[in-house]
């Protein structure tokens, strides 16, 4: 009995020593190649599966790489960037970070160039179109993790009841379809302009008129194309074709209402297919291309990325082995497939080519407009859209775009 107690205590002391030496303050021990290295990793939650997926990857990685530990921290998208900002300010930036915008960090020299934290094989495997978006001033800083595109989801039963024959392909047809559905007593179109993702809804419409948010050097929100799109959005609102209070509607709760069959049309993501299967498999719905002003295909594409913060030079090797390990086929394909996203690697695209639910989204990807994440002013623009775009409901479209542009200009 006594000896068991002693053994337990010794074991606890040993664990305690390990824990202390592997935390950030144990700088000496992590310097040697045979000592323990700890990589801090900060990632957002994409779904309920995110934690389990990353934990699986980390477990396999740690088993294959003796002496390297990965500390995982998961935050909601809402909090992710303020958590990161606080960490950077405290000098405790995570070694690996999964996020959207990266150029503000790159411009301050906080990031490793991609070639320092991934092998040439890994870098060569990325599809060209994605790799291009990861560069700032000619250097690639981030590794594209996943892609996603938006498509129009429509409720077939509501279409039938309202006498809408085919999904709309132009704005005019969309207005028409929404009008017919609204006349039956159900909102025709769901427009979420609340803070959750106002920038996404805005860019889908802007892209549908040949507009966008600009490029890596200039943010262009207040343009004639965007204004025309915003005026059309306003038209949909004033004609009463959207759900009530679009300016204060968050996307996720609104999609739930669509899932219950109480909205005619919404823009949604590949994951929505899985959500419908799980929550309301009886929903009779279809997926179509995003209707645009002229009928030319265009949509919003989103790409998220992994980047590595430069804290302690001794960790570069461990980061590299993690990146190479993760982007290898079996780990990566499983991760992307379970999360319901589109792959960014050539090998991943081959492996997932047969996935039918992803087909319509993969087709739309070439016509996708991306956020200007490589522009250092993008963070501020994104924030301005989140807090101001909803004012479209009550204010003049021109003045809303002007206010957002002013915020973007102030930050660049």
């Amino acid at each position, binding site marked *: 009995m006594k000896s068991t107690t002693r053994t337990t205590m010794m074991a606890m002391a040993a664990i305690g020593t390990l824990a202390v030496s592997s935390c950030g303050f144990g700088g000496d021990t992590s310097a040697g190649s045979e000592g323990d290295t700890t990589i801090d990793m900060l990632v957002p939650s994409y779904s309920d599966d995110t934690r389990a997926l990353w934990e699986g990857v980390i477990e396999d990685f740690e088993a294959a790489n003796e002496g390297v530990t990965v500390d995982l921290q998961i935050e909601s998208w809402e909090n992710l960037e303020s958590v990161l900002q606080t960490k950077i*300010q405290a000098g405790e930036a995570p070694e690996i970070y999964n996020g959207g915008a990266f150029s503000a960090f790159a411009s301050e020299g*906080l990031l490793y160039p991609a070639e320092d934290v991934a092998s040439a094989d890994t870098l060569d495997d990325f599809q060209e179109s994605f790799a291009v978006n990861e560069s700032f001033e000619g250097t690639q800083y981030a590794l594209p993790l996943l892609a996603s595109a938006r498509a129009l989801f429509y409720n077939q039963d509501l279409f039938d009841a309202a006498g809408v024959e085919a999904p709309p392909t132009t704005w005019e047809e969309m207005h028409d379809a929404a009008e017919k559905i609204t006349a039956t007593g159900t909102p025709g179109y769901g427009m979420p302009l609340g*803070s959750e993702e106002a920038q996404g809804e805005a860019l889908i419409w802007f892209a549908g008129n040949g507009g966008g948010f600009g490029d890596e050097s200039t943010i262009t929100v207040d343009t004639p194309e965007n204004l025309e799109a915003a005026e059309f959005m306003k038209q949909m609102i004033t004609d009463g074709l959207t759900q009530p209070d679009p300016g204060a*509607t968050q996307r996720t709760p609104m999609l739930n209402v669509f899932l219950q069959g109480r909205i005619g049309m919404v823009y949604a993501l590949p994951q929505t297919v899985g959500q419908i299967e799980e929550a309301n498999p009886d929903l009779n719905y279809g997926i179509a291309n995003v209707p645009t002003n002229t009928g030319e295909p265009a949509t919003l594409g989103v790409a998220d990325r992994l980047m590595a913060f430069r804290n302690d030079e001794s960790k570069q090797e461990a980061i590299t082995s993690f990146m190479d390990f993760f982007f290898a086929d079996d780990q990566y394909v499983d991760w992307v497939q379970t999360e319901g996203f589109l792959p960014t690697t050539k090998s991943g695209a081959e492996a997932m080519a047969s996935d039918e639910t992803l087909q319509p989204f993969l087709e739309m990807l070439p016509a996708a407009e991306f956020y200007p994440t490589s522009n250092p002013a993008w963070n501020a623009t994104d924030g*301005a859209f989140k807090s*101001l775009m909803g004012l479209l409901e009550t204010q003049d479209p021109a003045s809303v775009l002007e206010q957002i542009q002013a915020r973007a200009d102030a930050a660049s």
Partner: protein
Amino acid sequence: MSTFEQPPITRIRRARVRNRESFVAALPWIGPVLILIFGVVVFPAAYMIYNSTRRISQAGTNIEGVGFANFSRVLADPNLPRILLNTVVWVTVVVTLTVILSLALASFLNKPFPGRTLVRMAVVVPWAASVVMTTTVFYYGLDRDYGIMNTFLVDIGILDSPYGFTKNVTAALGAAIVVGIFVSIPFTTYTLLAGLQAVPADILEAAKMDGAGRVRTYFLVILPQLRSALAVAVLINVINVFNNLPILRIMTGSIPGYDADTLMTYIFKVLQFDRRLDLASALSVLNFAIVIVIVAAYVKIVKPMKED
């Protein structure tokens, strides 16, 4: 020789030494508290003031000192007047209604009646529950699409169709005020109840003998006795309600623009959406200053510490 004649100076010096000795002796006991106060009050407050005079990049790098530039920017903010007005309305309405309702509730709970203990326990419930949880219950209840309160109001014919209570400025602030009162009542009621129980029975008897009616007894005898309890309840409520983030953040969080913001939620938006740590710090210093001014004015005017 001089053992018995201690000059006064030596005596004072001795007293000082004794004081220092007793401070050193007390250090192990008060030390942890001092560390705690320094760690969670003094240091963060000082750091916040320091941040408010810096320029901090979007990424979080501390770039340079800018003096009071952040303050002049914050004070010139066109949204500020509306935000301050909202803050004043929010604090005044919540605190006033809470105190009035709590006075009534405390008087009621002070009377003997069957089941009084149970009712007293029930009053504590909103206090015991997490504010975020309570507010979320209200938030979902008021939801247009699946809210039970909305359905109820439609069913009994008050509303023709469901209304987005949390999506319109006035309605959302109103709903937040209701929740604010709901969660503030327990503490206030208990503070006032304690005050009521301290009112001596003989004073009430004397008032009765002198022929004072119920209303006169309440306003001229009981209420003045409640002075210090009321003063504490009001002061703590003002600070609490002024600094409240969760209720407003949940109830008015989805409203675009800044028409429904108080100083607290605005600071949060500047930090979360604009990622301006420096401006948010400047606003927090402003917030801190306002609270100090309110407390100072209150202590000066009401003199809650005065015994009479």
